[in-house]
């Protein structure tokens, strides 16, 4: 298992998961989102190539209402 921080919350996930697999787990793979992996933006083409390690920090953002 890997202990990661997702959107500020500590969670446990399976080891060796890719970003894409993580998105699928939360049913977000088809949504308009952007991802930061340890402070760097991950481009969509790298979702399947990027693996998540223990203690990684991931942020998933989307558009909300705002002025």
């Amino acid at each position: 298992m890997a202990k990661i921080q997702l959107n500020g919350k500590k969670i446990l996930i399976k080891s060796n998961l890719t970003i894409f697999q993580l998105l699928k787990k939360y049913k977000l793979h088809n949504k308009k989102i952007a991802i930061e992996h340890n402070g760097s933006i991950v481009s969509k083409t790298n979702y399947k190539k990027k693996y998540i390690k223990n203690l990684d920090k991931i942020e998933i953002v989307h558009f909300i209402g705002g002025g």
Partner: protein
Amino acid sequence: MKKDTLKVANKILKSRLIVGTGKYKNFKETAEAVKASGADMVTVAIRRINITDKKKPILTDYLNPKKIIYLPNTAGCFNSEEALRTLRLAREMGGWKLVKLEVLGDKKTLFPDMVETVKSTKILVKEGFKVMVYCTDDPLFAKKLEDQGASAIMPLASPIGSGLGLQNKINISLILKQSKVPVIVDAGIGTASDATIAMELGCDGVLINSAIANAKNPVLMAKAFKDAVISGRNSYLAGRMQKNYFAIPSSPKKGII
């Protein structure tokens, strides 16, 4: 007559009213108000997605980004780094290059930190963004932003969400006289007539959120703003009459009995 449109960067907008999508009761009301406003462009914020509630509705379910132009903003960012991070994420989300930059400097007034704003504009323009910039109504800073390559200057009418209306017509007029890019009044507009006043001054557009969302009937207020912006624009284009100190009769003197 040539169609009167607003061109910002490479986008042509039929409406000179841009609306925010915050503060509404729900997404249904947001969508109805946006529709009633006739706006082609809406501002949106970027925040963490709710990962625990997968069924929670999201904005894009109600406002289709393929049908209406999303203008990602940096609301809530208090320094250049936060603002740049937010807009880079927005660009990644769907190729948004046209963005609204706001770097706040003070929690009570939400006035922009203009030093950080100029710095951020420079970096974003270098990275290929088209930046519409929220700013104070200071003509000198507005000029600096234009020199850095801002796509639109967005001076505040009064503090964000205050509803105090256009407080400094003179400064807005000075900014209008010197600017070659669109000037869009952003923040502080309280009611429809405030928007008309801004448009009559010659502003290229207005951005409204709170005045619509906080109205008792937001959908009707959205329609009021649509009409107010059109009226103000037409009034500006028509050219107002001269002001006179004394009365001038409207009926001819000739033939008085």
